């Protein structure tokens, strides 16, 4: 990972791919997300940060309907998220997701993990799906692990498999929910390298992370959330050097101190 900000060199189109308008969400009576407004253009790399419990994971999980929002609109790739299962399926086909705990399927080999969704969701012939899987496993630099089970891999390798698994569906948008939080320090870099690579290829990415180095290098926009609201959003340069909000300053001083 180079330390030079390279965000400016990457192209962002005018096309809006995610549009969130006045969105609210409650867990029971607990108001988790409060009036969230967000527009994401194709090719953007957005880092979402904030203290724990601020609703950042919930926000990106609303985008592929792992969580249901109760008020407001979410429109992804021109499809509105409603209770209509057809819309949800359509959006999930376009949006890939990586989780903090990888969530690989432990009873399937790495290759089967990757080929499963293309075969069953997109009806791709098995052979073709496996070829695609090998292609993406090569891209995340672990083709030699294809026939192993997830339980036999290190955390960093598992997360790279999870990224490859998402990519096999050929998504237009990738969501990352704290992808490096469960990893040993030595393995964080190998996962971030893959994500940087992905950003360079122009993938639209929303990433919940505390890796500020990654935010500085890759993101074109950083969003800070607290108590269910977007408090501040800016380009990384301004965000880190010149935070506006008191809460942001406090958060940054704590996270950058160690």
């Amino acid at each position, binding site marked *: 990972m180079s330390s030079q900000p390279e965000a400016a060199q990457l192209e962002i189109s005018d096309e809006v791919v995610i549009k969130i308008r006045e969105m609210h969400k409650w867990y029971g009576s607990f108001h988790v997300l409060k009036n969230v407004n967000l527009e994401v253009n194709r090719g953007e790399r957005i880092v979402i940060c904030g203290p724990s419990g601020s609703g950042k994971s919930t926000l990106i999980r609303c985008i*592929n*309907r*792992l969580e249901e929002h109760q008020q407001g609109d979410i429109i992804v790739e021109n499809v509105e998220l409603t209770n209509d299962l057809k819309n949800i*399926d359509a959006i*999930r*086909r376009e*949006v*890939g*997701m990586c*989780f903090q*705990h*990888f*969530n*690989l*399927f*432990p*009873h399937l080999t790495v290759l089967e993990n990757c080929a*499963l*969704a293309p075969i*069953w*969701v997109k009806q791709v012939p098995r052979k073709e799906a496996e070829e695609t899987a090998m292609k993406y496993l090569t891209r995340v630099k672990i083709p030699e692990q294809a026939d192993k*089970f*997830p*339980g*036999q891999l290190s955390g960093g390798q598992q997360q790279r498999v999870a990224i490859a*698994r*998402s990519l096999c*569906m050929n998504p237009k948008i990738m969501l990352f929910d704290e992808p490096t939080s469960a990893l040993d320090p030595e393995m964080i870099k190998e996962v971030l390298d893959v994500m940087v690579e992905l950003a360079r290829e122009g993938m639209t990415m929303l990433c919940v992370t505390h890796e500020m180095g990654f935010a500085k290098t890759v993101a074109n926009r950083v969003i800070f959330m607290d108590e269910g609201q977007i408090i501040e959003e800016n380009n990384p340069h301004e965000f880190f050097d010149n935070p506006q909000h008191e809460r942001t300053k406090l958060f940054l001083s704590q996270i950058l101190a160690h």
Partner: protein
Amino acid sequence: MSTEQSYAPGEHPDMAPPSTEVGIIGWVRHNLFSSTTNIVITVLTIYFLYVIIPPMLNWLFLDAVFVADSRDDCRAIAKAAGEELGACWAFIGKRFEIFVYGFYPVEERWRVDIAFIMMLAALIPVLFDHIPYRKQGLWFSLIAPFVIGWLLIGGMGLNPVSTDKFGGFMLTLTIGVTGIVGSLPIGIALALGRQSHMPALRMVCVAFIEFIRGVPLITLLFVASTMLNYFLPPGTTFDLLLRVLIMVTLFSSAYIAEVIRGGLQALPKGQIEAADSMGLKYWQSMRLIILPQALKISIPGIVNTFIGLYKDTTLVIIIGLFDPLGMGRASLADTKWQGLSTEIYVFVAIFFFVSCFSMARYSLYLEKKLYTGH
């Protein structure tokens, strides 16, 4: 040993462990003589085995009489040979056919034999993968139950045999295997239904499971044998064995459902989320992701339930069906062979032990095969 050679950091070679840690000596030291308590237990166990095993072998084999015409005959033969009286297996030998076939007509017993062989052949592709022609084998397994049913009951070209002629081991196998094969899918469906988001479906499943679990099997069998006659319109005949099969299957499916529910709940939520996020539909997620893992976790519990069901088939004696145990008790009434209950119960015990132990071993084999290092 004081001349420990020094190595540079990271250069220390792997060395063989001390001889007291490996091989037979290591095993004996660790497992039999590791502490004073352990030594005492080992010695006592050896003494206990010494006291128990020789007399048991004498009774079972060495002093046993295998061919005789009556119990007195057994005694005479043992006396003539100058032995103490061991087991009189001749009794079992004489009764063997009735233990196997029950009251099934003698001239039709070949049908039971063929059905038995078909059952074994149908089980192989289901229980083992990595066998040649498994796919064709599974098709065979699918149609085999119907052919077996036809062979046993008759009709359509075969002489019909009433199900009250069923008895002995064939009855145990009929009830046991039907119960096992039938209760697994029903149990899975109930477990999934109990987790469903649809309140009506969930409540039906919960009510069913709790009702069945709250009532003893014997009660259900009585209901099967008598009460249904009151509920059903007069004149409807509903085969007794069929009623028993249904009740046993439902009974064990409620237990299976709860065992599988345990497996479902043991799975991290992330598994279904990952499946959802990739766009898999509910049934696809269940079939490809959730159930394979939940069933794998539940194997010990499932097999435990199956073994329980298999042994519970002996309860059918209460409603007038003769399983091996019932056959044995009935045979005791024969004056020629009076007082040989030990032989009968040992024989029946061996039969059940072999069946149940095979199931237990298969479950271990399956667990080992499905282990993927997590």
